[in-house]
């Protein structure tokens, strides 16, 4: 991060390769739209790049910095569009495009559809806590840095969300 701050494009490319997928995944699962996710993710990385000269090394991991920018960018995006999360099937339709085997593709599509629908049953805070933790791979401490909520509160959100998901999966025979 320090090298990138001092203008190293190689360092920024490294950060991009490390963080783009988790950031994109977070944006995608929050917007449920691949096109918007592509645009917003690029906006986020441009914002980070432009803000690098002002970046200060704190206790927070660089990943938290990227996700804080991502979160604010999504909120701004929703504000501009004047609506909340749009739940569409697009997240499912494109999710497994890269799978080679058609059977695997269908199966994964079904599974992702189930996950997406299940996430849709959560509150916005619960969904964010689950997506950040288990889909983007942030630690509870990092989620706390990004959202401004206490770690205990994050775990509580995750705990309740997991219960809801467990019930949903069970009711839909997605797991035993």
């Amino acid at each position, binding site marked *: 991060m320090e090298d990138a701050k001092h203008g190293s*494009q190689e360092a*920024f*490319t490294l950060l*991009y*390769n490390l963080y*783009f*997928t988790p950031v*994109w*995944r977070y944006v*995608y*699962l929050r917007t449920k739209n691949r096109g918007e*996710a*592509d645009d917003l*993710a*690029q906006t986020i*990385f*441009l914002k980070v*790049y*432009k803000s690098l000269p002002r970046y200060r090394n704190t206790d927070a991991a660089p990943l938290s910095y990227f996700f804080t920018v991502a979160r604010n960018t999504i909120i701004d995006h929703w504000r501009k569009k004047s609506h909340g999360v749009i739940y569409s099937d697009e*997240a499912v339709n494109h*999710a*497994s495009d*890269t*799978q080679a085997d058609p059977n695997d593709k269908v199966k*994964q599509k079904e*599974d*992702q559809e189930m*996950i997406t629908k299940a996430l849709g049953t959560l509150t916005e805070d619960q969904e964010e806590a*689950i997506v950040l933790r*288990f*889909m*983007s791979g942030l*630690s*509870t*401490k990092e989620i706390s840095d990004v959202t401004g909520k206490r770690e*205990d509160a994050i*775990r*509580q959100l*995750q*705990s*309740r969300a*997991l*219960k809801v*998901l*467990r019930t949903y*999966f*069970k009711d839909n025979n*997605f*797991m*035993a």
Partner: protein
Amino acid sequence: MKHQLSDNLIEEALKKHDAGIPTGEIVGPHDDQELLAMFEVIEKIENEATGIKPEMETLHALLKNISTPTKNPWSWMKIMTPIVGIAVVALFFIWHPGRTVIQNDQTAFVEPTTLAETAKAMETQFVYVEPANYGNEADISLASFTNDQSDTITLYDSTL
């Protein structure tokens, strides 16, 4: 063992999961099927997440954007428009043919040798001139001339 797990138990398990303790060690001591099921939920979500990924060629577009950052033309315009406007007006009054000074009464001093050029440049047939350097017509305060595309200038005394 079927029961609804307490939030505390799940939160404790999540804390251990955060700390990198393997699921087997977290669930094992409790031998709790519901807790195990909770981790199955996590595993399913984590597995599906790996299939959700972007097209990485966006890096190229991003780096292209970075190397030629998009500038907001309006911010440049906001600054430059008044400057350019003032400069153009100033240059017009300072440099337009035959003109050197605008007096308070808005009467223009026009050098006699540049009247034809002045007329051409101003695309007008009427120029206000001071009564200086026009032979004996010292009392001409307002005069007009015609520009017939030649060097011949005819002055008219507006008082006639």
